[in-house]
């Protein structure tokens, strides 16, 4: 019996690890989400989650180095939009993320640490895995039933 085949990416985007490319990443994510059947507001949010994941790669996995590469794969099934953000940088901490305590963050004058929370609020699942080639952050958004434009 054949196993369930992994869907082919509908779009693959490879960009340098530079923040200048976040706008292109965001625009691509928004368009793919709209194509998948997401409403405009949801597509905006998916784009934000992908922007945050790519920012984390640049700032944490690559430590700000601008000469590396990020590969984003957008995979569509009738049920979900899956975005995989891959890098070959330093392993990322995939431990549990504590709840946001804004008053404490304010008192500590903390400027970072919000991105992963936004990703978790927006997407249905957020997961991280380490492969032989590096880190992969996987963001999944379930699509409205019967509204996806992707044929089985």
């Amino acid at each position: 019996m054949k196993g369930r085949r992994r869907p082919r990416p509908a779009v693959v985007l490879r960009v340098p690890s530079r923040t200048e490319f976040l706008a292109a990443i965001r625009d691509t994510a928004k368009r793919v989400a709209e194509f998948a059947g997401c409403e405009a507001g949801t597509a905006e949010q998916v784009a934000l989650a992908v922007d945050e994941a790519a920012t984390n790669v640049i700032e944490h996995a690559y430590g700000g180095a601008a000469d590396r590469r990020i590969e984003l794969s957008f995979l569509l099934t009738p049920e979900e939009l899956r975005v995989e953000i891959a890098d070959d940088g330093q392993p990322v901490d995939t431990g549990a993320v504590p709840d946001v305590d804004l008053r404490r963050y304010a008192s500590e004058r903390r400027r970072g640490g919000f991105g992963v929370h936004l990703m978790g609020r927006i997407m249905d699942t957020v997961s991280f895995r380490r492969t032989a080639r590096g880190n992969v952050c996987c963001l999944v958004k379930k699509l409205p039933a019967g509204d996806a434009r992707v044929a089985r």
Partner: protein
Amino acid sequence: MSELSVLSRELEGVVLLYPSGFINAHTVRLFEGELQKALDGGRYRIVVSGVDLRYVASAGLGALMGVIEEVRTNGGDIRLAELNETVRNIFEMLGFNHLYRIFPSEQEAILSFREASGTGGAPA
């Protein structure tokens, strides 16, 4: 087209910032710089108008969080106005609406500084 520009003016003792475009990890330094200019000038009553702000990522939220303690310690506040639905949703997702007062209009945000001492304070 530039991804972000930030105009600044002062009215009735309140610094008004108008970020236009989007704030993310690439553009946030410009926004942080304008906030810091206000603080360096001893201006702690600040309204950020989102009338032309299309989108804000966590970097923009971090910029506000990084200075709010200093602003409030000095008797001021950062208040937000005219956020579009996308931006407002982002603020609400992390509960920023409980830490920052958000007004429908710039005028209401400015006038809010006249209340009592007009300073400090997260929303009740």
